[in-house]
């Protein structure tokens, strides 16, 4: 699967880097695609309600009422109409980009299927909403949409009556069908909202509101676009005439020329096959389910840190079952756990300073335990030689770390940078297992496990439990968010880091530094 996602990832990385030259990181539109989707959804809802007040729901009156909004009330209802249209286009654009980006990040495989699969009906509903919306204006475009849609439906064997027959000639037009469209145009987006709620059930702290700066920028551009280029109707529908040439909204109706010109079996087969392939993607090929995190009650004190850090809603705190006097205990739902190990990184009991026999944290991954990681640190340290030794903790999703291994660079693999308890950094430096530590993970903001890079940064900054002790010299620590494709970047950063460490010399504790200074001063005095 990675073969297919890699080229897309290169594109997204490049686009993200380009935008980050102008946008502060948290405002970057590419990092807020889902949130922008919600933003557009709310704008569509608000403007839709406003426009509906002036809309006449009869098929014979609809066109005139929309014309009234655009011409006589251009400053209010007309504006709202433009907002409604362009926000709908914005929604499709960000939705498709969001889908591609999640795909490029690989956040859809195996146990993560849930968000992917629930996204698919949302995609379909958004399209149905857009198509029925264009239908309501009952202009030439609406007529075209009506004819092509119904002819396409007529290829299916279920309809006794030809649906397209409703649009054969002016006399066959009935308002009943039109009422159905209005109903769908309101009901389908509401259903989509319910499915979106489901869509977010397995991610913790989803970003559903864009940051204010991005919201203002997006809102302003909608406003300007609506003012400069308001949405207008095409000529009124007339079934006695062919809609010979129409201005299509290519975001919603891009496939219509194909539906119209290819045979029914061809278009229906491709549509169904495409849908099945997209729906099967999480399991192509089937992925071995990684072993879920396991709680060791004897070591869990119910502090809830793992619950707060788990990106996939897999942990709950429940009543204590062993009678010990703690608030609660962590319980993992194996069906939701993606085995990122972030919980083990957050548990206060995961500290390498504990004696080897003891190193069983409150929560741990059976396939990659904290004890394994400590054993690897020792094995690598053993191997290293030279004045400047560097220990790299590399996220296995950013496989590049292995490429920098050498006689002076040790590499220890993690399931996610968030799996590393900060005390390990302290441990490596204070025990002089290496002169410096590098943490190499996914590109910033594109963590495979959503929150790994974010929590790691916060723990090092000391703004999130568990902190990296303040006394650990930060100049001996480097984080490199190089991503899967950043081997060159990682090598370059290690080279510069090597020079920095070389200038710093061997690590000494504050106590030793003070002692050294006193000795020096004593020597000077003599």
């Amino acid at each position: 699967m990675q073969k297919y996602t890699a080229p897309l990832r290169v594109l997204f990385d490049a686009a993200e880097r380009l935008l980050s030259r102008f946008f502060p990181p948290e405002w970057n539109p590419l990092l807020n695609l889902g949130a922008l989707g919600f933003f557009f959804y709310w704008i569509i809802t608000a403007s839709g309600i406003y426009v509906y007040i002036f809309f006449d729901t009869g098929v014979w009156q609809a066109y005139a009422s929309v014309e009234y909004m655009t011409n006589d009330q251009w400053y209010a209802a007309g504006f709202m109409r433009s907002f409604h249209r362009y926000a709908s286009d914005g929604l499709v654009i960000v939705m498709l980009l969001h889908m591609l980006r999640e795909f490029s990040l690989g956040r859809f495989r195996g146990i993560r299927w849930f968000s992917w699969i629930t996204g698919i009906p949302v995609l379909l509903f958004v399209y149905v909403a857009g198509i029925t919306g264009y239908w309501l204006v009952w202009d030439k475009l609406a007529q075209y949409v009506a004819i092509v849609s119904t002819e396409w439906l007529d290829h299916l064997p279920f309809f006794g009556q030809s649906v397209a027959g409703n649009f054969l000639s002016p006399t066959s037009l009935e308002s009943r069908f039109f009422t159905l469209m209005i109903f769908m145009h309101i009901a389908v987006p509401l259903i989509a909202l319910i499915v979106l709620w489901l869509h977010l059930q397995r991610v913790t702290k989803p970003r559903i509101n864009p940051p204010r700066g991005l919201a203002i920028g997006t809102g302003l551009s909608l406003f300007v676009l609506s003012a400069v280029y308001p949405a207008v109707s095409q000529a009124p529908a007339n079934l006695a005439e062919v809609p010979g040439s129409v201005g299509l909204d290519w975001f919603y109706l891009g496939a219509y020329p194909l539906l119209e010109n290819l045979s029914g079996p061809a278009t229906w087969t491709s549509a169904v096959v495409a849908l099945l392939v997209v729906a099967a993607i999480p399991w192509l090929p089937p992925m071995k389910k990684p072993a879920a995190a396991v709680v060791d009650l004897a070591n869990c004190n119910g502090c809830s840190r793992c619950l707060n850090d788990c990106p996939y809603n897999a942990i709950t705190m429940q009543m204590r079952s062993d009678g010990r006097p703690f608030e609660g205990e962590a319980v993992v739902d194996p069906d939701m756990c993606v085995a990122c190990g972030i919980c083990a990184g957050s548990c206060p009991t995961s500290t390498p300073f504990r004696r080897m026999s003891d190193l069983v944290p409150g929560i741990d991954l059976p396939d990659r335990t904290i004890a394994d990681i400590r054993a690897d640190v020792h094995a690598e340290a053993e191997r290293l030689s030279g004045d400047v030794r560097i220990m790299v903790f590399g996220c296995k999703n950013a496989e590049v770390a292995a490429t920098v291994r050498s006689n002076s660079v040790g590499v220890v693999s993690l399931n996610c940078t968030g799996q590393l308890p900060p005390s390990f950094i302290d441990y490596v430096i204070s025990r002089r297992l290496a002169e410096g530590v590098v943490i190499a993970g996914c590109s910033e903001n594109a963590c495979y496990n959503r929150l790994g890079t974010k929590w790691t940064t916060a723990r090092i900054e000391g703004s999130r439990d568990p902190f990296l002790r303040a006394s650990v010299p930060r100049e001996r620590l480097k984080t490199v968010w190089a991503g899967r494709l950043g081997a060159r970047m990682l090598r370059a950063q290690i080279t510069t880091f090597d020079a920095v460490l070389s200038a710093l010399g061997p690590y000494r504790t504050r106590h030793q530094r003070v002692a050294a200074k006193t000795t020096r001063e004593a020597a000077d005095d003599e």
Partner: protein
Amino acid sequence: MMNRFTGYLGQAVFYAFAAALAGYFATRPVYRQVPADQAQIKLMIKHGGVRVEDCRKLTTQELSKLPTTARRPIDCSRERSPVTVLLSIDGEPIYQAELQPTGLSKDGPSKAYEKFLVPAGRHLVEVRLRDDVRDQDYKYEGRLDADLKPWQNLAVEFDAERGGFHFR
């Protein structure tokens, strides 16, 4: 990040570009579906052909063999005739089809929904339909001397209850 001003300027350029792109493709490029000098004839038929066999009175003997609940005095084969249609413009046939009855036991109506482009102008549109395999001649006929305007849509619909073909 560069300084604040260039940052905002860059963002503005990005928004302008995105809005222009969205605004443009929301209505353009215009899609031309039918050349400007053509008109369209749309033919729609939904009609059940005559039954292939006549109904037959069962003899008392035959009736007595049937279970009591299934004793109907008349036996009808449900299969319908195909419907044969011929549409011609200025004497040239442009569509000819034998429409099979729908349904598993071939007892449903025959259906057609076809569109034809013809150059705008005067045309003699003739359409004929036969709904019984035993007939040689067309039972229904429609004829219209039409002056088709560019992009006109001429609907030709068959409705047996209202006497046959209708042009609209």
